[in-house]
């Protein structure tokens, strides 16, 4: 057993997405706390990481419903209850014209929920993250692909994990301090 308490994770750097996806699959056989970083959305990578529950659509739906129901209720309340104006004897509860603001605010609510939901579910915004301590990590937004096995994983062992990673054809292996 090597002491790994000063580490956040052990990171392997790859040159292409295919190697990364294969490596992720291999590492997931042994470890739970595996993360992967890529400069664009790589197909099949989230599934390889065991990512299943994407709640963004649900959050978006809730946002849309809240927006639509809210604005319809506001229109009805203001026009019928709080501030009724008799305009040429037209009905106060003029639902056909309420549809336009209702449509707009439904879309607005859903879009805001999609955007904020995506950010909050991702744990963003965030000022810093230990992974940024990895040298070369600035290339994760350019052309390099990174796999990280967190030191907090129960099966993490500096030597064993390093041996596993070095068998996966990485460019280099990096110890990331916590």
């Amino acid at each position, binding site marked *: 057993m090597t002491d790994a308490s000063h580490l956040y994770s052990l990171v392997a750097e790859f040159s292409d*997405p295919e190697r990364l996806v294969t490596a*992720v699959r291999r590492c997931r056989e042994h470890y739970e706390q595996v*993360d*992967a*970083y*890529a*400069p*664009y*959305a*790589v197909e099949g*990578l*989230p599934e390889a*990481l065991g*990512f299943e529950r*994407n709640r*963004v*659509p649900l959050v*978006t739906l809730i946002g*849309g419903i809240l927006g639509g129901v809210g604005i319809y209720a*506001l229109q009805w309340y*203001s*026009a019928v209850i*709080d*501030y009724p*104006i008799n*305009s040429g004897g*037209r009905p106060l509860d*003029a639902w056909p*014209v*309420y549809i*336009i*603001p209702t*449509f*707009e*605010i439904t*879309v*607005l609510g*859903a*879009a*805001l929920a*999609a*955007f904020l*939901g*995506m*950010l909050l*579910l*991702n744990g*963003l*915004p*965030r*000022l810093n*993250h230990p*992974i940024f301590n990895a040298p070369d*990590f*600035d*290339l*994760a*937004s*350019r*052309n390099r692909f990174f796999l990280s096995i967190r030191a907090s994983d129960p099966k993490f062992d500096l030597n064993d994990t390093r041996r596993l990673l070095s068998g996966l054809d990485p460019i280099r292996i990096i110890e990331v301090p916590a």
Partner: protein
Amino acid sequence: MTSQAGTIEPPRGQRYTGAIITDKIADLVLVRPMHWGFYVGFALSTALTLLFIVAISYLFAKGVGIWGINQPVAWAFALTNFVWWVGIGHAGTFISAFLLLLRQRWRTSVNRFAEAMTIFAVAMAGLMPILHLGRPWFFYWLIPYPDVMDVWPQWRSPLVWDIFAIGTYLIVSLLFWYMGLIPDLASLRDRARSRLAQVGYGLAALGWRGEARHWARFETAYLLMAGLATPLVISVHTVVSLDFSFGLVPGWHSTIFPPYFVDGALYSGFAMALVLAVPMRVVFRLQDFITVRHLAKVGTLTLVTGLIVAYSYCVEVFNAYYSADAYEIAMIHNRYFGPYAPIAWSVVLCNIVIPQALWSRKLRQMPLALFTVAMVVLIGMWLERFMIIVPSLAQDFLPSAWHMFYPTFWDLATLAGSIGAFAFLFLLFLRFLPAISMSELRRDAREQPIVAR
């Protein structure tokens, strides 16, 4: 690294890799290579922006009487500008959202700047009705909020729908644009060398680190936003057209207005996208990303929307006679043979006759020709908005009320100033944010190689 524009390029005939794409596009912002074309454009647009500020300040000091508006022509340049600018703002979101849903991969090179174009155009549009208000500082009374006056907006008024439609469109377009920018801002943060740029782009990137699960949620949210933005695009100009068609004025009161306006909006928007893309790709040496093929596709879209616009003009004339309504028929006569006839025939020339040149495949491959036709279309579309708004008001039901409208210097200054301010914002965007989506291009370049020419 030199200050020569776009020196980071693979040798001729070689593929662009993810690294070269990122370096090239990021350096347009971080290194800021300068080209004389940029200086000229920036100087011109700054001068016009100053004119805009002067025109608005004078307007706020004196009131709308400085314009040529009168009774019965209470709506003129400000509303023409409004409808024209909102229209231009349509193509951006259409290109990015609709083409994303249709999986048209070519959109990747053009969506970012088209979205920026949308936002700045809608910003210009949003200003116009506010400037046109007698008391512009009370514009927020249109928003429903619990105030001490106990007054609510009149929900049956299209002008109230306007603020919902335009406001929602601006916010959703902004969110869509910003969301697409987040991974690119992270690229800029990682590549920036100055502390200020690192911190600035770092804060804007919200801590994006490219984690695979983050990408999955990002892609889902992006697709959902595209699905939401697409009907929104259609709704915005529909609502704008209702401002007119809900009125009884001959020439406005027509059921064809919503599709007619939406299509005209896309027409002018595609034209503006061409007008911006043609010089931009030369000045910033983006010809390998925004290729002749991209321009030709936008040219085709311009032609298609132009033909629908031509059809709408015909239907307007047909409907006037078919209605057997004396005022509608008189309106069509006045439009094409009355005092504003030169405007109407210029519209026909600019929007119907000249764009037919786009049928030629050879011409669609010539950037300069596309630029010229697009300019003509933009002028034509502005005149079309004017043709719909002013002649209908100038000669309505009672001949005793008829009155001509002539623009004053301040009308023209507001129009020119808004064009300047739009260009000013767009040029600043090109200097501070990546003009093309780097993350999407990196992904697409693996499947469809981008070859240096």
